[in-house]
């Protein structure tokens, strides 16, 4: 178990999440992609913390990342709810008002 191994696995998770976040049409599936990416960040941060500087600073930073994941989930569900109520759909392609 090395830092490189941890980071390569985290890179693979990040890439899979990135694919989902870009390619999916359903809003909740986009959220799943974003969560996989944050999951990768947690793993990479944990690896960097343990192998480079195992002080409480990095440990606290991980708690902040987990809090960011919580915020993303809560706001994502709220946006999905309001989008479904106003458009009757949860597709990202139907919420492109700002693009027009």
């Amino acid at each position, binding site marked *: 178990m090395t830092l490189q191994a*941890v980071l390569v696995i985290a890179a693979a998770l990040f890439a899979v999440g990135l694919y989902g976040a870009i*390619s999916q049409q359903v809003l909740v*599936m986009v959220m799943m992609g974003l969560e996989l990416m944050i999951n990768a960040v947690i793993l990479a941060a944990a690896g960097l913390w343990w192998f480079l500087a195992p002080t409480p600073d990095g440990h606290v930073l991980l708690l902040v990342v987990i809090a960011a994941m919580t915020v993303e989930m809560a706001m994502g569900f709220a946006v999905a709810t309001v989008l479904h109520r106003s458009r009757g759909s949860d597709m990202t392609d139907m919420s492109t008002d700002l693009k027009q």
Partner: protein
Amino acid sequence: MTGVVQTVLFWGLGAVAVAAGVVVFRTDSMARATYALAASFVAVGAQVLFLHLDYVGVIVVLMMVMEMAVMAVYMVMFMGMNPALMPMSMVHSRKTSLGVAAGAFIVLAGGALLVPWPARRGAPAVDLTVSLGQATMGSKMLVMLVVSPVLFSTIVSALVLALPRSRYDRLGDDLRRRPAEDPQPGGVGR
């Protein structure tokens, strides 16, 4: 646990995490996608435990299992049809997305393997969870003081977004309308 067994287990958990992540976007069933994501999170949580972050690892597993249960409910609520019964493509820009994802993996993994990482500085505390608690209640308290209002404002703004009718809909812009305009009139004093 010997080093070899630990390494094999760690790579095994990594393979499970990545494979479950791929299944999320390959399966037609929304329920299966949700459970696959939960499996990916549990595997990463176990990997974090391998890195001696007991508190963070357990938090990740518990939080994500609950979150996926909520997400499964949302999937059932909001999906207009059941893709497991009526398979159809729900993706756009598939080739571009695959290219971007592959490029990101090559850059990130290449960086991980090629960067000359420095040697470890400092030693971990004897009890890491205790040291984390002392840091959050001591030298790193400002971080928690910032995170707390962020989480609170998230609760408020998510509720404001998700509520179908606010008090302004009921009582008017000046909040003086009496009786309140409700879809179903009634209640005490009305």
